[in-house]
């Protein structure tokens, strides 16, 4: 009997601890300074990703393009919808596209941020749905960043909105729960993407025998720097780089959750992810992953203070 009551109170205390941890993780109001930095970087990345469509836009999606609306609608998910589907001329297409580009511009400078971030997220999803077969890792990551900016309050720092609010005396920035949720979601996605990429890579022999970076380096399209010369001279270098990518992804997937390793993930992520992006011929993906770790720096500093 006493044993039962003891175990019941132990269960209750562990439930209470779990609830407290959940509440503290998701619902503790947080200042939006780091999310504002994410907003600025996301805006710039959005402009860079748009540039990868820019010159070929009408070639792909125009009336006489390679991806006519009918064949894309038949190919993609039946639940997908794109505002670009309604663009039947090159002029309409350009207006919609440069509308999206200007939204990314507004997002970068933080003008009407709540509206701009929502429209940019919808516009980006629309662009991806117009040609889902063109989308890659950086595009997926950009969609996540944009939806997190919609959830959180990212216009309270480093923005035109903040300047206007200060001058007009409307309201001051303050810690918010929705900012905490957005930051938490960014952290969860940084871990999930690292883990999923790691699992996908470990199915291939080349990631075990240490030659994956060689196979990526010899693929010319999208190549940022040609390192085949160095790799052909040293097998050890090739192995170190390949195993390094795997080790880093494993470290992020696990280390992002523990206080003692968070600091390393937060700081090193800003440098290592872009390097991995260059090595794997996905530089913008590397930058997106680095952006996901930006708020972690604030969490680490916040925990210290």
């Amino acid at each position, binding site marked *: 009997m006493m044993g039962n009551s003891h175990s019941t109170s132990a269960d209750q205390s562990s439930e209470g601890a779990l609830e407290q941890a959940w509440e503290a993780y998701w619902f503790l109001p947080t200042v939006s300074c780091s999310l504002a930095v994410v907003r600025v970087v996301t805006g710039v990345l959005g402009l860079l990703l748009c540039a990868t469509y820019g010159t070929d836009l009408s070639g792909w999606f125009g009336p006489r393009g390679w991806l006519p609306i009918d064949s894309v609608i038949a*190919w993609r998910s039946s639940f997908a919808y794109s505002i670009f589907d309604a663009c039947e001329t090159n002029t309409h297409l350009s207006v919609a596209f440069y509308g999206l580009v200007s939204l990314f511009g507004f997002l970068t400078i933080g003008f009407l941020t709540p509206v701009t971030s929502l429209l940019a997220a919808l516009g980006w999803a629309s662009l991806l749905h117009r040609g889902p077969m063109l989308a890659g890792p950086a595009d997926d990551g950009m969609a996540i960043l944009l939806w997190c900016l919609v959830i959180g309050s990212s216009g309270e720092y480093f923005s035109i909105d903040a300047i206007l609010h200060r001058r007009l005396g409307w309201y001051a920035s303050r810690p918010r729960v929705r900012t905490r949720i957005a930051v938490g979601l960014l952290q969860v996605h940084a871990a999930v993407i690292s883990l999923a990429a790691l699992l996908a890579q470990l199915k291939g022999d080349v990631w075990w025998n240490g030659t994956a970076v060689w196979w990526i380096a010899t693929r010319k399209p*999208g190549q940022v720097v040609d390192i085949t010369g160095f790799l052909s001279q040293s097998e050890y270098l090739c192995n170190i780089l390949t195993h390094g990518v795997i080790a880093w992804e494993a470290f992020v997937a696990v280390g992002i959750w523990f206080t003692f390793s968070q600091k390393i993930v937060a700081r090193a992520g800003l440098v290592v992810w872009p390097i991995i992006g260059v090595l794997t011929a996905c530089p913008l993906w590397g930058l997106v992953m680095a952006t996901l770790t930006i708020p972690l720096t604030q969490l680490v500093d916040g925990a210290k203070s």
Partner: protein
Amino acid sequence: MFLEQNKHSKRGSWGEMPRACATVFLAIYFTGLGLTVACNTSSGSSLLLSVVKGKLFSFWLVPPWLDLGFDYPLSYGQQADAAHYLELREYGQEKWIKLSGIDGKHSQSIRWQRLLHSVIASEEEAGREGLLPAGFSEAAFSLCESDDIVLRILVQPRPERQLPLGNPAPIVLYEARLRKLSGGDIQLIKSEHHREMAPVISGSGGA
């Protein structure tokens, strides 16, 4: 009760109900996210997980929303992730037109690569075979200035690390003739000649 309210104000501006709603939403989202990672399209999936995912989240399974899977192998060192090229020619002519920009170093070329990979991958998917090449017709006709053309997708094999860097001959992965019929319909005739054939075993000495 007052103590409870104080606790809420410490936690922030959200009351019990918004927090409960957010918790439910997060739980559903994470379930979907876990399922998409566990059974994304190309990293293997069990029938059970796929059915659960399809039944519960089918309205949501569109790439930028939920069904991301984050399946980024980056390379398996196989032919499928080597550089692809698209070539066109007017039917009956010999000279192929190679599309520029596909094998460049700039980032547009990565999107072209994904498109060509999708064409090849779609040939193995029921209901999607031939859709993308048929969609290429208008652009291809305009480029070749003809309504009867042949298009082919090639892959550039890559050398092993120990071998000298060179350019081995590309392999044709897909070839099809596209022509516009009198009613304006597009006809796609896929060429099968490059496929491997099983050897013919002649004689009556078999088992």
